[in-house]
């Protein structure tokens, strides 16, 4: 029996190939991208007017599900609004048995949870020009007047369907994307970010 297995994700080769790109290659780049391929994602469907469902989720995750469109709630996990009856629950790391417990919690309700951890990866962007980069690839107004901490939007970035989560003060943004599109999006970022200076970890 193996003692432990190292977990890998699909963008590790990309990180190794990509040095800092752009004009400010010698200095700290204006955009830094790190990949997080080890989170847990649960797709949640239920009726927000059903107290049995909302209470069950709250008792498990420790937070209410966001009922306002295009927002998220954040504590131990992030719960993103995806639709009027759909959310994405994101845990920062994998924990054996957690999904089974969550699923059991919902057994007595009409809601469903599906473990979709294998389907998504997160590109964490930080730096002064992170929003400028995203703005190059999507049609949304990402100005402070319409995009703030606690907002999360589903949109297309460079023709890839993605979720942009504004999770913390300062220039920190998470782009949640399907794994099969992640390498394409990272390559796009490498090119589109060159004018600002971009580094991948």
């Amino acid at each position, binding site marked *: 029996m193996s003692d432990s297995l190292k977990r890998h994700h699909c963008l590790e080769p990309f990180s190794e190939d990509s040095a800092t790109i752009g004009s400010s290659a010698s200095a700290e780049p204006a955009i830094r991208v790190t990949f997080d391929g080890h989170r847990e994602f649960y797709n949640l469907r239920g009726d927000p007017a059903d107290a049995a469902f909302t209470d069950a989720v709250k008792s498990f995750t420790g937070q209410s599900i966001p009922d306002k*469109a*295009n927002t998220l709630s954040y504590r131990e996990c992030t719960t993103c609004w*995806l*639709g*009027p009856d*759909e959310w994405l629950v994101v845990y920062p790391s994998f924990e054996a048995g957690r999904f089974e417990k969550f699923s059991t919690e919902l057994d007595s309700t009409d809601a469903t949870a599906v473990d979709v951890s294998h389907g998504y990866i997160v590109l964490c962007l930080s730096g002064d020009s992170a929003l400028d980069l995203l703005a190059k690839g999507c*049609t*949304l107004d990402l100005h402070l007047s319409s995009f703030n901490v606690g907002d999360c*939007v*589903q*949109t*297309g970035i460079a023709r890839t*369907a993605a979720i942009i989560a504004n999770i913390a003060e300062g220039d920190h943004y998470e782009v949640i994307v399907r794994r099969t599109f992640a390498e394409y999006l990272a390559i796009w970022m490498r090119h589109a970010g060159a004018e600002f200076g971009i580094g991948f970890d």
Partner: protein
Amino acid sequence: MLLIKCPWCGNRAESEFNYGGEAGIARPANPDTLTDAEWADYLFMRKNPKGLHQEQWNHAQGCRRWFNAERDTVTYRFTRTWRIGEAPSSTRDVDS
């Protein structure tokens, strides 16, 4: 850029949406009793007006919900949108 107002997400670029044909076409309750002509009318015949048209749209790169929209087929202007199962507002967001 043409903006379409998703009833859940608000104004978004047209490129996030897919068109889904004429709105408000109900499946006949008793298909067995229909003549071929009536069945063909349900399946294939659509209004195609020059002017205001009620349509189904899907916010494909956003919340992925279907909704209803009223659009002027001459100007392309969206005059109002509303959620499935709800009635349209009595006033238009913009004139056609």
